[in-house]
């Protein structure tokens, strides 16, 4: 099974205010407010930790949800965030500052 690695896009601006993570695209100034799961993905996106480990240690620990289902949802969400250029996703670990 292929791994998925996530890294934050350094070109977006992010601030957490009272538990709410807000992100603004540097490209077109679109503002995003992340839900709890997306916030966990953003906070855990260090380029080195595979998604299945993030799901197991952070998402399943916080939400009462079966691991496989949580992983499928997290993969979908990660791709969605990548579509908005909030996250970078890769099948290999992502080195900071190196584009895909």
């Amino acid at each position: 099974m292929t791994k998925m690695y996530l890294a934050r896009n350094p070109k977006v601006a992010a601030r957490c205010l009272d538990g709410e993570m807000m992100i603004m695209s540097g490209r077109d100034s679109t503002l995003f407010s992340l839900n709890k799961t997306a916030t966990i993905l953003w906070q855990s996106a260090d380029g080195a930790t595979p998604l299945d480990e993030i799901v197991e240690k952070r998402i399943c620990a916080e939400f009462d949800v079966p691991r496989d289902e949580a992983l499928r949802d997290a993969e979908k969400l990660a791709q969605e965030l990548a579509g908005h250029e909030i996250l970078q996703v890769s099948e290999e670990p992502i080195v900071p500052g190196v584009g895909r």
Partner: protein
Amino acid sequence: MSLPELITEIELLSLTITIGGMAVRVHTLDAQFVRMLEDRYAGFVGAADEDPEIEFDIELAAPRDTDPNADVSVRCEGSRWILQRGDFRAEWEPEARRGWIRQTANPYSIDAVLRIVHTLVLARQGGFLLHAASAIRNGKAFLFAGVSEAGKTTISRLAPRDVTLLTDEISYVRRKEDRYVAYGTPFTGELAKLGENVSAPVETLYLLAKGKENRIDGVEPGEAARGVLGNLLFFAHDEELVQAVFHSVFEFVKRVPVKRLTFVPDQRVWELIG
């Protein structure tokens, strides 16, 4: 019979427009255009010996079919900014503190250039321009933010005599150490009345909402940030500056109370302000 003069001395005319404490000097050959600008920016014309932050040479083009409602484009190429809309093109080199504007003889194009340039300068200094009316009462500035039709002009029109109006459309916010100061602007909305060229520390920012009663409610920090971000005036597609302005807004909402002001259109709403 003598030969006609081959060389004629051309007088370059200048005008300094000072908004938010920042002087911009414009140079043109057209005396009528200068008079138009003196009228347009009455109250914001600075002293001739004021040291300008930026100087613009204005090249007046012949009238042609232009679209002032076309999308504005603001981009940085190397060391210069290029500002463009259907009715003007301008370039500005921040390091040289100089630029030029090509437009027809109208006050709207240069107004747009000034707004853009001020947003770019403020972005690096922790300030911003905001779609908000603003006014001073008892030495404190109050901002009333909202999109078109939210009530900016209405609340400005309802202001009692002891209130000094800074603007009914575009508020000018500058960071001064740990506080924020609002300045009057000549950028008007439907009221078509220039703000007073004065300033005061920002006391509260109100997010405007029309309703059936006059009421002030607190808002969650996230809603406050979204409310301010949603009313920001910023044109540049520049990742570094967008990030700077984004963080400036969060610094602002950390230091300035943001509340929701629901109001009915009558003067009693001002009993809640100040």
